[in-house]
């Protein structure tokens, strides 16, 4: 049975916030509130082991291609937010933890349980 780790009060989070909580002695879990949804991932990048959850949250960058296939520039797509590992810049889709450049790789995902005011992560 998964252990419950108390993250804190739901009211302490506003859109875009994250909190990194210890998961035993040698690991942590990053807990996020993004677009009204709760997410939790191991603070461990599958690339070289960087602290992925300690980096930036960035919107997906997309190319703007016109109907005639000409390049018109780039834009942020705020509907898809990325966790960015601060060591090397690997980006992970907040919705599922998959590495956006190669979805065979991903952050380890944990369930989040909000009971009343309390936010728990199931590790």
């Amino acid at each position, binding site marked *: 049975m998964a252990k419950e780790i108390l993250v804190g009060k739901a009211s302490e989070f506003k859109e875009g916030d994250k909190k990194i909580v210890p998961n035993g002695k040698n690991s942590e879990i990053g807990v996020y509130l993004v677009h009204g949804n709760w997410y939790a991932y191991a603070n461990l990048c599958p690339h070289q082991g960087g602290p992925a959850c300690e980096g930036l949250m960035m*919107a997906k960058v997309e190319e703007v291609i016109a109907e005639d296939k000409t390049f018109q520039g780039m834009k942020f797509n705020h509907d898809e937010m990325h966790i960015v590992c601060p060591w090397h810049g690997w980006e992970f889709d907040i919705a599922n933890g998959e590495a956006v450049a*190669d979805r065979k790789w991903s952050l380890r995902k944990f369930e989040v349980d909000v009971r009343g005011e309390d936010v728990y992560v199931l590790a």
Partner: protein
Amino acid sequence: MDLATSDKYHSMSVDSFDTTKLLTNAARQRDARKLNEFPIFDTDAHHYEGESIQEIIKYIDDDVLNHLARSNPGIISQGRGGYQPIGGRVTRYPLRKIEETPADGTHRDIHLSRRWMDAMGIDYIGLFPTGMLGIGLAPQVEVEVQYAKAYMRWLTEELLPSDDRVKGYVFLPFNSPEAAYEMAQEFVDKKGIVGFLITSPRYKPVHDNAYMKTYRFIEETGMPLIFHSGLNWNDPLMSVTNRFIAAHALGFTLYNVIHMCNWICNALNERFPTLDVVWVESGLSWVPWLGQRLDNDYKMRSSEIPGLKKLPSEYMADMFYTNQPMEMPNDLDYLEMTFKFIKAETQLLYASDYPHWDADMPCTIYDLPFLDEKAKRNILGGNAVKLFNLDVSERYPNYKAE
């Protein structure tokens, strides 16, 4: 400090920054793999000498250039673009300016180096500059010569004497063969010097007769000659690319490809049979590509390179390489084949390139499933201990190179 993000809702503000904290997971890797039980030498580590530019300028003898540099340091220390941090995603770039170090007389660059070395389990580093990697592209040869000499004086007087774990290389201002020869002699005996450095982004042929006396001198010292690659987005060929990733992936490889071709095709391995040559920061996958290309052509055109006594690829396998930025294909069979091609167990030297954005931790080597323990330790340190003739007795009293 507020970091630049894509929108105001997902902002990030940081009050302080500590390299040791950033590398907590590296320290966990170090302990889990017991990396402190054998010597690790990082052949390619960096500092940001541009942050100490006012200190370096004091060592410029030329009064006019000294004045120009004081009035505008960018004249001598122009960097190579601001794309490395990937728009600030690699946070140690913007945050390093708020990292505090003790004001105890030891240079800040030494303090910062020790932090990441200790976290990763690295015992010794060979220190390279950063912005200076592009000085070979300066339109004024005298700027490269004066800046290189000032940098080397600063490095050998203010940094290297303070820590035996930090080694350096003599920066050769290669666009002036005479100055390169003179500097090789001037700095070879300074404390902490273990090799000689040519920065690869430049347009001088390595086989020019003007360099032969310098190669002979280096060969006689027993120290290696190192080619450290780089990029030049303004190169007419590279300027066709419109993304940094292309200029970086190609540039960091191609300059060493060019110099390697000239080195092989002019039989410099035969002219200087005991001169060890190291190719730095081009990754590894280019070596099998180039070796196979040259071998194939050589079998048809051996009359064009009569100085060779064996295949080009066999000379290439006699030389040394650093891993970083090591290609990590999902199918590791490709990487294993590359290791076989370059005889990695004896010819490959670990390099982190830290703190640059594409740094490789020691685990990139240690965790490779096709290496045995002996090979891992050779690549991470043993090969460098032999090549650079390092004394590691203070940290490993019972160490014996295999």
